[in-house]
Every structure is written in structure tokens, then in C-alpha cells.
């Protein structure tokens, strides 16, 4: 009996030890041995983020032009509806943008990106549910892609901000990092919550998003060139 007891104890101990190993998984660097693992520099981060924003803007432009061709050949303005990001104050010219400063500019960017997370996914859902199959099937994929990319872009810009804080480029006064949804105008969000999107709504949404993505891209470029003046600028 004693032997049995001891053996079970041993087994238990061994099991614990071996089971513990997977729990205590350490994070290994992706870089292989002998390779120096560098965290991407600020310039690299900026480049990636700017590329991403450029891609986002490209897709949104495509979608918008598709809608215009398909549904509204002559219409070229938003009409009476405002974009739901209207409340976010954004610099409308170069001087204002330069006057804003890095921290605020970063904040504006993050706000804009945050404000579009939900509406884009809703747009995608609405597109897939639309009866107009031919057009929407092709466009809904783009909308989904756009939505995902915006999410990635947002996390990327967050990293850039963190890096800048780390480097002391911007102060820690930046408080805005979370809850961007609270900044969306209620009227717009309510209309989104209603869920009755139609083609006109799609078109307007796309128009607004196209513009906002352009803003984001431009602001990021300004941010990069003021923070890291290089030959690219």
C-alpha cells in the first residue's frame, strides 16, 4: 500500500511538472537564432501605417465610384445629410493642420478611425443583405475588407502613438485612447442603429468615409514629416 501511495505521488508530481510546462509557455521571439530582433523603428511604423491608410482610401474610392456609376450617375454630392463624423473637428487646411501639433493630430486621427469601426461593419452587413445581388456581392467583399483594414489601421496608429510617447516625441498629455464611439453624433448613430440602410445611405456613407480616409492619410503624412523630416517628405 505504501508503495502504491508513493508511486501515485510520483506520478502526480511528474504530471504536474509536465503539465506545468505548457502553462508556463514563454514567448519566443519570431526572429531566428543569431538574428537581432529589432522592434520596428518609428519610421517603419509610420511607413506601414501610411501604406495601410493609402490602401483603405483606395478601396473606399473604388466603392464610392462604383456606387456612383451604378446608382447615381449624375449625383456628386452628399445632399442634405451630414457625415456622422461632422462633430469631430478636423483641420481643413495646411496651416490649421500644422498649428494643431502632433498630439492633437494623433488624437484626431484616432478619433476618426474609431468613429468608423462600427458603421463600416454595418455597411458590410447591409450590403450583403441587400437584394441587389450582383452589385452588392462584389461590393460587400470590399466593404468587409475595408472594415478590417480600418481596424488594423487603428491599432497601428495606436502603436505609433505609443512609440512616439516612448521616444518622447509627444507628451503623455494625450488622453484619448479609448471609447471613440462616444464621440459619434447620436443622430447618426441612431440612424445606423435603425438599420434601414438603402442605397442612398450606402452612397452617402461611402462618400463620407472616402473623405475621412483621405483625411487620415493626409494627417498621418503630416505627422510623419513633422516628426521625422526625411527625404521622403
Amino acid at each position, binding site marked *: 500500500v505504501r508503495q502504491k501511495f508513493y508511486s501515485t505521488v510520483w506520478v502526480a508530481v511528474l504530471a504536474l511538472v509536465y503539465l506545468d510546462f505548457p502553462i508556463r509557455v514563454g514567448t519566443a521571439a519570431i526572429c531566428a537564432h543569431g538574428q537581432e530582433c529589432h522592434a520596428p523603428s518609428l519610421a517603419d511604423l509610420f511607413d506601414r501605417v501610411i501604406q495601410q491608410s493609402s490602401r483603405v482610401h483606395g478601396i473606399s474610392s473604388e466603392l464610392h465610384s462604383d456606387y456612383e456609376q451604378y446608382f447615381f450617375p449624375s449625383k*456628386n*454630392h452628399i445632399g442634405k445629410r451630414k457625415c456622422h463624423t461632422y462633430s469631430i473637428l478636423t483641420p481643413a487646411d*495646411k496651416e490649421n493642420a*500644422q498649428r494643431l501639433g502632433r498630439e492633437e493630430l494623433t488624437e484626431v486621427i484616432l478619433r476618426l478611425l474609431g468613429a468608423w469601426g462600427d458603421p463600416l461593419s454595418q455597411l458590410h452587413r447591409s450590403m450583403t443583405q441587400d437584394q441587389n445581388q450582383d452589385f452588392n456581392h462584389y461590393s460587400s467583399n470590399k466593404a468587409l475588407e475595408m472594415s478590417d483594414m480600418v481596424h488594423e489601421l487603428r491599432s497601428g496608429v495606436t502603436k505609433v502613438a505609443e512609440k512616439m510617447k516612448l521616444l518622447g516625441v509627444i507628451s503623455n498629455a494625450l488622453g484619448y485612447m479609448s471609447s471613440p464611439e462616444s464621440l459619434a453624433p447620436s443622430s447618426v448613430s441612431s440612424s445606423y442603429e435603425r438599420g434601414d440602410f438603402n442605397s442612398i445611405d450606402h452612397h452617402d456613407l461611402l462618400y463620407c468615409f472616402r*473623405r475621412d480616409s*483621405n483625411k487620415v492619410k493626409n494627417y498621418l503624412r*503630416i505627422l510623419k514629416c*513633422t516628426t521625422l523630416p526625411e527625404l521622403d517628405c
Partner: protein
Amino acid sequence: MRRAVGSVPLLLMLFFIGHAKETRYSPPGKPKLTSCRSPEKETFTCWWEPGSDGGLPTTYALYYRKENSDAVYECPDYHTAGENSCFFNKNDTSIWVNYNITVVATNALGSNFSDPVDVDVVYIVQPHTPENVTVTVMEDKDGPFLRVSWEPPRKADTRSGWITLIYELRVKLEGEEEWEEHRAGQQKMFNIFSLRSGGMYLVQVRCKPDHGFWSEWSSTTYIKVPDYFPRETSVWILIAVFSAFIFFILTWILNLKSNSVKHCLLPPVPGPKIKGFDKQLLKNGRSEEVFSALVVPGFPPTTSSDCEDLLVEYLEVYTPEEQELILEEGKDLQEGCLKSKGSPSDSDSGRGSCDSHTLLMEKCGEGEGKEEKHQERAQKGKRQQKHQTGWEEGDVSHTREDVLSPDMSEGRVKTWPSVFSPLPQYSSRPLDHQGSLETARQLCLSDSLFPPPSTSSHLSYNAKEGLALGSGQQEFYLGKKQTHPSNPQSQPRWHLQAHSDFNISSMDRKQAASGLQLPGFRSTEYVEVQRVNQEDMVILQPLFSSSCQRDGHLQIGQGEDYSKVKGEDGDSCYTTSTAASSQVTGKPTSCAGTAMPVQEEMVLAANGYVDAATMLL
């Protein structure tokens, strides 16, 4: 009334309007906004196209409304941008704001509104052309290339990142029609390769913002490429030279080895060679000698030939005991001599093809070969009146060689044709008549020092022995004694039998009991050694067959005896006459087949080519 009064001005107005229409006055036509452009995304300009003016001075006004605002503003600047334009400066320009612009044309008779246009400045950016386009020729290991560099247009603020431009340039050779376009991205420098040496190039650059319009092409920049040797051509030249070099080498090698190549590709057809044909003589130009060498005495047979003529005649040699021994020794000596002599190479490629003797030798071995050789020799000897070069030693050697060759080894077979070796061999060793035998003897003696082969059968029938009966007998004895013990093996009994076509039908290979035994020498053995020495003396050692009796043997007394073949008898017998120096006693002219002693019949036949088929002994 009032109405009536009020209507008068109306009527007047109508009248005037009617009148005006007659003089083509009308309200202005509808203007049209053609385009709005912003060069740097900070200002923009709109242009319109006026409609008909209606014959009256018409004014145009541009009004705009900003997005989400109901305020209507008029164009701040009508002049900066020129006629029919409206310039919005920085203060009035807002980006990412939708402008609703309308142009109104007004004249005395009315006004006309254009269609409204929505403009977002971001999407109407068209920069100016790039500035300071410089092109320089730079050198590289592959050749020269063009380096084009430029600067963004002055007003576009790319440094702050407000506007991002991408560039494009185009190049063409002077005189060409098609431009070669290249995208340069955001960089302000570009390299152009693969230039034509000495060409004149035209370069232009333009730019575009991310989403906007292309600028105009910059003014053309001309650049001349200096002359240079293109690398590609030089590579081709190298390749051409190299291949030509290889080609020449191959040709030279082919030329050198043309013979072997010819041999390989076109193998020579073996053809019959003429025995006794001496190329050297031909080259010397003495055709008589050449042809005379070819002439075979006795061919075609002029005399009536009976069956016997075609048969190989064998000389019967009668030897007493001593002679047998001597013979045996002589054989050894012969062997030795022959051995030492070696086998001269026969240039006759046809050797052995029709040579039954060779075949026979191969079949029956040594003894047969020996027999054949002896036969041959006999025949040859008879024929050799005209063969001058009958040297004793040559004969001896050849005979010995002939004798020896079959029994030496298989390799010795080739010595068999030594009998057929061309005459010059003989001529190369002119011997005195007197000393021929001696030298031959000496040769034999010297050869006797060499141990005879221990092959089974060797018959050394040495005509010399016969010759040397007299004086040289001792030597022979010596030789014999020397060689004798070294010849343990018995000799096979060999028979020279008469047969046609040189075929030795049967060969008796019985081995004699004693070492040196000349079995059947008396009755059935025929030894025939013939040679023709220098003075046309045929030294015969004939064994006459009973059938056709020839006198081929010479009585050689002691020492060297050689008999001359004087001539042919009618019944194709050789008359032999002994040499002067020899002690040959007689001239047996009988065709009776007398068995001559071996020593007497030291007929060493040296022959060049003898047609054995027609040799009749």
C-alpha cells in the same frame, strides 16, 4: 385704369423687347463651368465658359456655397486667374469641404445661371510641372547611363507632407516618335540605361498627387550620349573570335590527322598486294628492276605440264647416321640461326590469306610448318635462277627461319613468310661467294649459341650442315653438341609429302625416340633447302620425289657446296652446277630422285618470291 396705365410700361417694355429681338438682343446664354483646379491643395481656380452674350454686355458672377452652410459667397477674385475665372486664395479655400459653385451671366436683358458644380479641393489637385530637370551622363561598368533629377514644383509643399507627389518621366531618341515612359514614384531621381552610343535624347518629367491630375510635361531637356563601344557588341565580337579560333584549330587538327580520319571514315579496302614488289625500286624509277622482281620464273608455265608440275616436289635426302645427327644438330643450329635472325617483317599484307602453308602451320603445328617451309624452299630454290640475291646467310637464315619458325612458337609462324621476304633483304647483304657460306656458317654457329627452343618439335634441317660437312663439320658438330642436349624433346617425325597446292595433307608428328632423330629422313623425309646466291647459284638440297625427278641437289662434298642451277631442262629440271669454290663434285643433272646426303645438298634456297605452285623439283 391703373391697370391700363400700368400696362403701358409693360407694353413699352414688350415693344422694346420685341424691338430688341429684332436687333438680336437677348439675355445671356447659359455659362458653363469648365474646370476647377488647385495647383497645391491650398488654393484653387475655377474657369467657366460664357454662353452667348445676347448682344449686350454681359457680366458674370460666381457664387458658391460651402457644405453644410447656407451662406452664399461670391468669388473673391476674378482677375488673378484671367478671363472668366475665379481664384480662391488660401483664406477662402477649405479642404475636405464641398463647394457648390454656380456662375451667373447677366446682361441688360436678363441673367442666366449655370449648372452647379460640386467641388472638393482634394480631388482637383493638378500640380505644376516639376522644376529644375537636369540630365547628366554617367559612366558605369556596363556603359554610360543617364541620370535624370528634378525638383517638385515650387508651390507644392511636399516637405511638410501636406501633399505627396509621384513622378513620371519619358525619354526618346531624337527623331523617334514613341516615347519611353517610366514611373519614378516619389523619388526625385531616375537612371536610364541601354543608351545608344552617340544618340541625342529628349527627357521630360511630370508629376501627380495621390488622387489628382497629372501635371503638364516639363520642357524638354536635350542630352547627347557620347560615343562608346557597346559592351554587348564587344561580347559578340569576343565570341566570334573565339569560335573562329576553335574552328581553325579543329581544321588544323583534322588536317594533321587526315589520314587517320580518312582511315576511320573510309577504311581502306584491302587489296591484293604483289609479292616481291618493291616500292623503293619503283620510287627510284627503275621500273625494269621492279617488274623484273615481279617476274616469276616459270610462270606461266611454258613447258608442258603434267600433273606433276603442280605437285610439290620434295627432295629426298639421304643421310647416313652422321648426317642425321648433323642434320639434327643442324636443325638446332638452324633453329638457332633462325631464331637469332628473327623474322623479318613481311610487308605483304596478303600474307597468309592464300598461303596454305601458313594455314597448315597453324593447323598442324610446327612440324608441318617446317615441312611446308622446306617444301617451299625446295621449290623456291629451283626457281631461283634469276634471283640474284641468294645469300647464303640469307638463305640459311631464311631457311632456318623457315624451319625454326613453325616450331618456335605460334608467334613464329610469322617467320614463315620470311621465305617470301622480298629480295632486297637479300640484296642488302651481299655476300661474297666465298664467304657466304662461311658467314652463314658463322651465323649459324653464332646462332647456335642461342639455346634452341624447347618446343616440342623442331626440325632443324640445316642445309648448312650439309654444306659444312667438310670443314665446318666440326663446327656443326659443335653446334650440334651444343644444341643437342638442349633439345631434349624429340622431334616429331615429319614428312614432306608431295601434295598439290601446298597442302600438307598429313604430318606425322611422331616423336622420335631419341632427341635428335631425323625420322624417316631417308625414305619419307624430304628436305629441300634452296637458295640462290649472288651469282645465280642455286644451292639446293633437294630431295627428289620419285614422281618427278629433278636434279636439284648438289653434291656437296665437304664444306660448302652449292650448286648452280643452270637452267631448266625440258622436263623442268634444274640443272645444277656446283659452285667453283665448292667442292661439289658433280653436277647431277639427272632428274632422278637421288637422295642426296644432307651435307651435299646444302642447298640453301634463298628466294624472294617463288611460286611454289609451279616449282617443280
